[in-house]
């Protein structure tokens, strides 16, 4: 309907408007090709065990793994870089307390996680006045004194 404005094209302007969108499309294409091999850059998903899921605040994954039968009281290897720079062996509860995540601590307790006296003292001393402390206090084993002076945790 009608004619165009002029017969000339301002090439720098044309490049200016087109290049970012083309780059976006190219990046999307690369990402989709990587996705075909399970390595989509913006959706990188790593399989984790129960302690690792608790340590990186993946509440839904914690739920899924418990429902799939992983034991909330067992110790699991935690890969370096997730919680510490070195590898560690932790229970899910320890991992959640280290990350100070009350939602996951509550979830683990609700799904049968238990602590013996020694572990409770170690966790409670580590937690100090953090957000998970009230939850730990609510699950304090009977007649356990809280002595934190000089105490070191297993992962220290």
């Amino acid at each position, binding site marked *: 309907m009608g004619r165009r404005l002029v017969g*000339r094209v301002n090439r720098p302007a044309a490049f200016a408007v087109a290049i970012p*969108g083309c780059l976006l499309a190219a990046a999307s294409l690369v990402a989709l090709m990587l996705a075909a091999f399970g390595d989509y850059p913006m*959706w990188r998903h790593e399989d984790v065990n129960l302690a690792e899921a608790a340590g990186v605040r993946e*509440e839904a994954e914690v739920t899924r793994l418990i429902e799939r039968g992983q034991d909330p009281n067992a110790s699991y290897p935690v890969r370096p870089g997730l919680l510490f720079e070195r590898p560690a062996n932790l229970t899910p509860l320890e991992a959640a307390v280290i990350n100070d995540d009350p939602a996951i601590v509550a979830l683990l307790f609700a799904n049968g996680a238990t602590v013996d006296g020694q572990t409770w003292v170690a966790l409670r001393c580590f937690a100090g006045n953090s957000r998970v402390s009230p939850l730990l206090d609510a699950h304090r084993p009977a007649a356990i004194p809280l002595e934190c002076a000089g105490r070191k945790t297993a992962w220290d």
Partner: protein
Amino acid sequence: MPSATSTHPASIPTTRSAVIRPAYLTGPQIAAYLIAAIVAVSFAHDLMRKPIQVSDSLQELLDVQQSPSLAATFVAHSPRGPFLRPIRQVQIKMLFDAAGGRYQLAFRGFHAMLVALALFLFVRALQVRTWTDCAAAVFAITVFTGMNTFRGTVREAFPINHFLEIVVFCLLALNLAQSRGGWVTDTAAAVVFVVASLTLESGPLVWVVLVAGWLVGLRGVSRRALVIVTLLLGAYLWTRFVYLSIGTPGIDVGRDSGFGASMLTPEQIAVRFGDNPLPFYLYNVATSVLSVLFSDPDRGVFQMARGWLAGDAQARVYSATVPSILTTAVIAWAVAVAFRRYRSGQRMAGDYLFVVFGCVLGANAVLAYAYAKPEIISVAGAFYALAAFVAVRYAIEYRPVRPALNRVLCLVLAVASALWAFRSAGVHHMLQTQAFRERVEWARLDPERIAERGYPSDAPARALTAQLRREALDLRIANTNEVPAWADDWWGE
């Protein structure tokens, strides 16, 4: 940009149809469709990994599960509360029954298909011919997908995103108006109007698109068909306001909405505007227009002002408003040029999209009077991107005499284009964050105790909830706690 010349025919017939499309796709067309397809597939990939949400979706799915038939579903929602959306629920029922137990695949697949369809119709409406058009089309695609209004169409589904459906219907109406016409086109126009109007309150925008198209000379939809669609609109209004007496949603609709620099709850809205809601409605209409043109306010809240007042300038606000301001400035300049040329008797290809955009923006803003939400004005957002296409094409074909001015023009276009592409990329982050949250929502839902949340609690309802929950938990979703903070600063919500 090889052979970036704009050698359109000196004149294009306008007697029957505004556009004569070649029977084959040209290089620039293929390039534009290819880029749109890549963008669509990348969003589809994300949507397929996003769980059906609990809020706004579980109740709908349980409703259609309990409904014995499509007819019963239609009747039950004609009307419901202040809404008349029977086809909305019928679509959910149809998809639910067709899903065969694979609800995530069915509903998210449908959502992804709608996004792809919207992008296809969008590019088709641009009528790309030259490489100049293609460059402007690439820009327009990033505007379309980078706007806050588009985010609203992919962020959630209910469990079908009907706002996105209305965008598709309106773009389809524009494509019909641009076509060569015929009885199939006329019939399609009437069917699209009926389906859209009974899907959502913003459905009558299809009529606005058809009428605006007619006014600017698009003759794909015949005068007779336009009269029929207008009669159908009259029938819709009579049914709604006279026969069913359901009126329209008001301030009692029960939705949060922004006002000034803060969000108001439904109770606060009732206290402040219960006696005289007109100022609130006018505010919503005005801010809806502004939010399309400048990406601020968002949901009725002036985010930039709020950031200044709180001493908390947010990158995400500026990354949205700066490209919007620049693009709106280019559109305003192009409209002024087009108007000057129109008065001197020259009409340029695509100018009519400015008029159609203006009509759709006004009508869509009026329909958003009850509460502010980006989804509601998503049709205006899509047509804003169409207007941006024409405006940027003007800019590409404009060569200032002074080199300094040309550098400024290129800089403005480059900044706007780069920021829109950046915004569009941010939609992936937003979808990732939403997916992570929605999976947590499902994890926290106990199918055996859904009655506590007010859902039906019979055995089929519990089984369906358990099935949806299992599908959500089985999705491989990245942990957004591990995403760098800058992503949320720039792309978050």
